[in-house]
């Protein structure tokens, strides 16, 4: 296995287009957390023609579901949440300039089309590896919508945040590619 590729933010389209499905990466810099409620509020604001409180150009968004932080810690255990719930909002958000998304699970064809158009990459963080991921988070600062509590839009300073490219800008999908060599099962043979 090749070494992990180190990437730093801001994450440009040029950087994004170099990554291939199956690449293992370590992200250092600032990533921005947003999940269901924040996506809803932001796309509604855009539909009303308002400007968003956060500039998403060349950002990486993290679909994050944290536990409460213990006193003295920047964040609690913070693994990825299921990305599919964001799919309805994602093409609109990618048009805002987001070039990377981190979550877990499959995405809708409309999202993949928008990724190709915008040159965006979808990364998976390992589902359930929440205590490990927390180790790479150095600070947590709410940027917008504090009223959403743990679902607020927040900046996370990360060092060597581990992730794997699942869907690259060309639409190659490692959820499919990665399974093929090991699939010897046919339900009709039972």
């Amino acid at each position, binding site marked *: 296995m090749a070494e992990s590729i180190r990437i730093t933010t801001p994450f440009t389209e040029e950087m994004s287009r170099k990554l291939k499905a199956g690449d293992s990466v370590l992200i250092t810099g600032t990533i921005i957390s947003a999940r269901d409620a924040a996506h809803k509020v932001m796309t509604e604001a855009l539909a009303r023609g308002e400007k968003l409180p956060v500039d998403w150009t060349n950002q990486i968004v993290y679909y994050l579901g944290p*536990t*409460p932080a213990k006193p003295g810690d920047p964040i609690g255990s913070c*693994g990825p949440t299921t990305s599919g719930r964001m799919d309805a909002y994602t093409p609109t958000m990618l048009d805002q300039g987001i070039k990377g998304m981190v979550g877990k699970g499959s995405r809708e064809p409309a999202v993949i089309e928008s990724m190709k158009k915008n040159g965006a990459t979808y990364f998976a963080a*390992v589902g359930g590896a*929440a205590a*490990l991921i927390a180790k790479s988070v150095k600070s947590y600062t709410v940027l917008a919508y504090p009223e959403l509590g743990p679902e607020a839009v927040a900046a996370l300073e990360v060092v060597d945040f581990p992730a*794997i490219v699942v869907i690259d800008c060309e639409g190659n999908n490692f*959820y499919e590619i990665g399974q093929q*060599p*090991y699939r010897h099962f046919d339900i009709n043979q039972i």
Partner: protein
Amino acid sequence: MRELDVKLITENVAEMCKEAAYYLPDDVYRALKRGRETEKSPVGQIVLDQIIKNAEIARAEDRPYCQDTGMTIVFLEVGQDLHIVGGDLEEAVNAGIAKGYTEGYLRKSVVGEPLFNRVNTTNNTPGVIYTRIVPGDKLDITIAPKGFGSENKSGIAMLVPADGVKGVKRAVMEIILHASMNPCPPMVVGVGIGGTMDRAALLSKKALTRSIDERNPMPEYAKLEQELLEMINSTGIGPQLGGTTSALAVNIEWAPTHIAGLPVAVTICCHAMRHAHRVL
């Protein structure tokens, strides 16, 4: 008659909720390590390395292993010669859940009503509590918090007797293939066969409280567990991004059923197979 104060139940349940969230059981940890040794996919190996390291960090630092600290399933076996005093048993258990999830910095993931008004209860109560009366004068408590990434992929099939072993295998594998990489594999699969629809579902949950190193005592079921495990591990699902370690174990429990039926329920658990057990 032996007496047990509900305060003691609350205290223990609170401790157990934290324990379950922080400490992955040894049998699961060892199975992950074995999986890492045999995993063929290079990306699968990276994923398993992270999952193993995650378990070690969570244990060493008393941190939740996964951020979805689950809905709290509680199995109680109450000795018929035990007298519980000082309050209501279920209230005491729920008070323990609230205390454990609050003090332990665990995520509160329960809404009070499922359809029209999904408001978070803010302390993870109520738990899903199953109580049985058994001989003796002890209280046996098992806490099995369940994350919903995997719970949402669980399922049930009401087969007919003619479907037989083949039908059971097909039903289980259809549920597994549909779940694919979504329930955070490597998974542990609990299967309940027989009973009624509800009994089969409960058995599939109970099956997950048995050590994954132990096979069903009846050889036919032990063999079926092994065969299903091999099938699941040849689907390619692997540890989330493809590979050979899709599941760590299949645990089957069975119960008598009706002449006309063959219910099969499957509870899929993720690698976050968290449990705590105490006898008071």
